[in-house]
Structure formats: structure tokens, C-alpha cells
């Protein structure tokens, strides 16, 4: 598949950058002329991944989050990468309602939302090294 366009972004793990990351992803993907629903799905998935990097990855310490995005003919790939604490048990982390931070009123639905709103979710994590979340979505609206 040919890459039509691509960006690589690095930003600080500050909660004010959650909205920033959503806007960046949405502005870029809108080049493919997706539906409003597709844009909303992507914004939500990006928000979940970036929030996780801030809360769980860096546990509110200062770190750098990377977000990479590739546009194809009628699909988009987005990666959110941190070099934070990593995930011990990815299978457990993926389960709906599982959260390691119930005290922070986390719902444990982040990965479930990413999985439902995107077509594919891949999580690669190494405890002590960091986590990389790769999401892929076909835009059904394109070429119709």
C-alpha cells in the first residue's frame, strides 16, 4: 500500500496535549475527506491512547509522547508511543473494565474503545521500557 501522506509528532506528556493530539490527528485525516463519524471515532481513539501514555505510561511525570500517522488511499494508521513504565500483562490490560488505577476513577474502557472505534489495535509493551499502540482504520466513506 502506498503512503499518501505522513507525519511524526513528539510532544510533552501534559494533559493539555490530549486535546492537541486529537486536533492534529483529525486535521491530518480530514485530508482523506472522511465522514464526521469516522473523524469522531479517530479523535476518541487517539484521546484514549494519549491519555494512557500520560496517566499510566509516565504516571504524571514528564515524558515525551510520539504520535505517528500514515494516510493510505482509504485508510489511516496511527501509532502512539511512550517510553514509560510499560504493561506487565497486555492480555489483562485489554479486558473491558480492567484498570490499574480505579482510585483515579478510570473506567478501564480505553483499550475497548480503541478496539471498537478502529479496525485493528496492536499493543506492544515492554515493562520498564514503554508502550507502543498501533491503530488502523479503513475509511468506508472513501471512494463511494
Amino acid at each position, binding site marked *: 500500500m502506498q503512503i499518501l501522506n505522513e507525519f511524526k509528532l513528539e510532544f510533552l506528556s501534559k494533559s493539555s496535549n490530549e486535546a492537541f493530539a486529537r486536533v492534529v490527528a483529525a486535521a491530518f485525516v480530514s485530508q482523506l475527506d472522511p465522514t464526521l463519524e469516522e473523524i*469522531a471515532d479517530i479523535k476518541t481513539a487517539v484521546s484514549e491512547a494519549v*491519555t494512557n501514555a500520560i496517566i499510566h505510561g509516565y504516571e504524571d511525570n514528564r515524558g515525551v509522547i510520539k504520535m505517528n500517522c500514515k494516510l493510505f488511499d482509504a485508510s489511516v494508521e496511527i501509532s502512539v508511543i511512550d517510553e514509560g513504565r510499560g504493561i506487565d500483562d497486555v492480555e489483562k490490560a485489554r479486558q473491558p473494565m480492567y484498570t490499574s488505577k480505579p482510585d483515579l*476513577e478510570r*473506567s478501564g*474502557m*480505553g483499550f*475497548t474503545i480503541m478496539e*471498537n472505534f478502529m479496525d485493528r489495535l496492536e499493543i506492544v509493551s515492554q515493562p520498564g521500557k514503554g508502550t507502543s499502540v498501533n491503530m488502523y482504520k479503513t475509511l468506508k466513506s472513501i471512494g463511494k
Partner: protein
Amino acid sequence: MKIKFLNRGNTLIASIIGEMDHHTADYLRDKIDGEMLKSSTRNVIFDFSKVVFMDSSGIGLVIGRYKNISKLNGKTSIVKANEQIRKIFEMSGVVKLIPIYDNIDEAINSY
């Protein structure tokens, strides 16, 4: 991000304006919990008509308030959530605990 409160009988209507995410959740939580303490409210209606974005931080916030309210035998409901936010509440099973209504009157009549 802003929040406005309105009392109707023993029901507090919390109208959230803007985006609900991890960044804005602390502020909203403080405001809502503070208002609950002040007033003699039993029930809470979350008015979502002006919420333009919500992620799972919003689920945590709503469920957290629901738990507090339920302990005091109050009821919680959500009104006027847009399609995307409805999808998130349905996906997460929140709707099994907290009903979503089309408008405030419907919510109040159900109490």
C-alpha cells in the same frame, strides 16, 4: 470547559459545556461534588447537550458520581448525549446503570 448548575426540586441538573477528557475531568469532578455538598439534592441529571467530545475519562466521571448518588438512594441520568457519546456509553455498559433520555423533562418524570 465550563459547567452550569440548576436545581429543579430535589434534582440537580449539571450542564457541561465543552470537551470531557482526562484534562478537564478533575475540574468537573470538583465542581459537581462541591455542588452536591452545597445543595440538598438527591438526584442528578447530566445535561450533555453542549458536550462536543467525550472519551472514557467521561465514563469514569459519570460512574463515580453515580456511585456516590446511589449510596444516598438518589438517581442519576444522562440527557441529550450526541450519537458518538451515546455509542461510548452503550459500548461501556453505562446505559445498564444510568438511563439516557432525550430531554430533561423525560428524565425528571421517570423519577
